[in-house]
């Protein structure tokens, strides 16, 4: 199989069948879906996937064009390259932030993570009423000072009036 890798994003108004149509079009080009994620954000469909195959970008875009015919979905295709493997991982953590909603919570708190070289690997935010919730999974460098990172996160959280908790990510090795 070709090593050509395409990143496909599909965004827009949700309806039944979007995933079926998208994947059928990709399969029709012989593309193999390697990684994907999809969710609904306040009822809006959001999907990203990486697929590999010999098709040209123009062909992928043409195959997915019918999805956009209704005018309420956007589709983008871009070539990507295989990224080099990460250096030896440090430690994995779960960050929870919650409090009253206001602008700047995410940027302030994750800025503290970034300032210590922390890399966020997964992020979910939710708003329900006045409650804003952020849960992130992040890696800290092997030589990172988790205590200092936690203190910086808590200080940042306090700055925007929310509460933050940083805990080691647990994995059960069987």
């Amino acid at each position: 199989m070709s090593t050509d890798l395409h990143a496909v994003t599909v965004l827009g108004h949700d309806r039944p069948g979007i995933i079926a149509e998208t994947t059928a079009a990709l399969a029709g080009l012989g593309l193999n879906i390697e990684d994907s994620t999809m969710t609904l954000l306040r009822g809006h469909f959001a999907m990203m996937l990486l697929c590999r195959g010999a098709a040209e970008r123009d062909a992928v875009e043409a195959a997915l064009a019918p999805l956009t015919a209704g005018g309420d979905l956007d589709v983008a295709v871009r070539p990507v390259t295989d990224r080099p493997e990460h250096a030896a991982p440090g430690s994995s953590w779960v960050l929870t932030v919650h409090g009253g909603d206001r602008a700047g919570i995410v940027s302030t708190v994750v800025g503290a993570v970034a300032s210590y070289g922390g890399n966020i690997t997964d992020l979910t935010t939710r708003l329900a009423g006045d409650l804003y919730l952020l849960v992130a999974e992040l890696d800290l460098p092997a030589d990172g000072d988790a205590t200092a990172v936690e203190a910086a996160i808590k200080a940042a959280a306090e700055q925007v009036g929310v509460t933050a908790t940083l805990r080691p990510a647990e994995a059960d090795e069987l």
Partner: protein
Amino acid sequence: MDGSARVAAWTEADLGVDGNVLEVVRAPAPVLATVGDAVDPVAPETVQLAADLVATMRVSPGCVGLAAQQVGVAAQVFCVDVTEHAKARTTHGTFVLCNAEVVTASRNDKAREGCMSVPDFTGDVKRGSRLVVRGQLPGTGEGVAFATDAFEARALQHEIDHCQGLLFLDRVAGTHAIYPRQTYL
């Protein structure tokens, strides 16, 4: 009488006061993120708070535990009653503990939790399913330590967390371990 038997024998009638049904506070109320003050278990205000917690738990459908923070008081008092819950094994009926702490927790088990103070989400939380706790009974101030398991152990850890200003959201297993829900029971 050992601690387990003493807790099982306790009822809110021991408090000698009637409880008032209080409003349950919802996140993001700051009190829910506030570490509770240690309390004097024989002080009249503690006894009244204990009675109020039980009364409020009783009228709240599906409620198996309620901490002082959830009625707006940053104090280390909570009530629990998991008697009717299908996942309960060992149970001690209705009881209130003051200044409680976990002595030992083992046999971690992950399960979905909800909370009256966080009505829009549930989340997967890992907690010990074998637990030893100690605390004081309101009214008499007796110190008790006892072991429990399964759902009662989970409920106790959830309530002790409330008393320390922590919600189950602070312990969810990861970004894909929280779930929206439309209604509370």
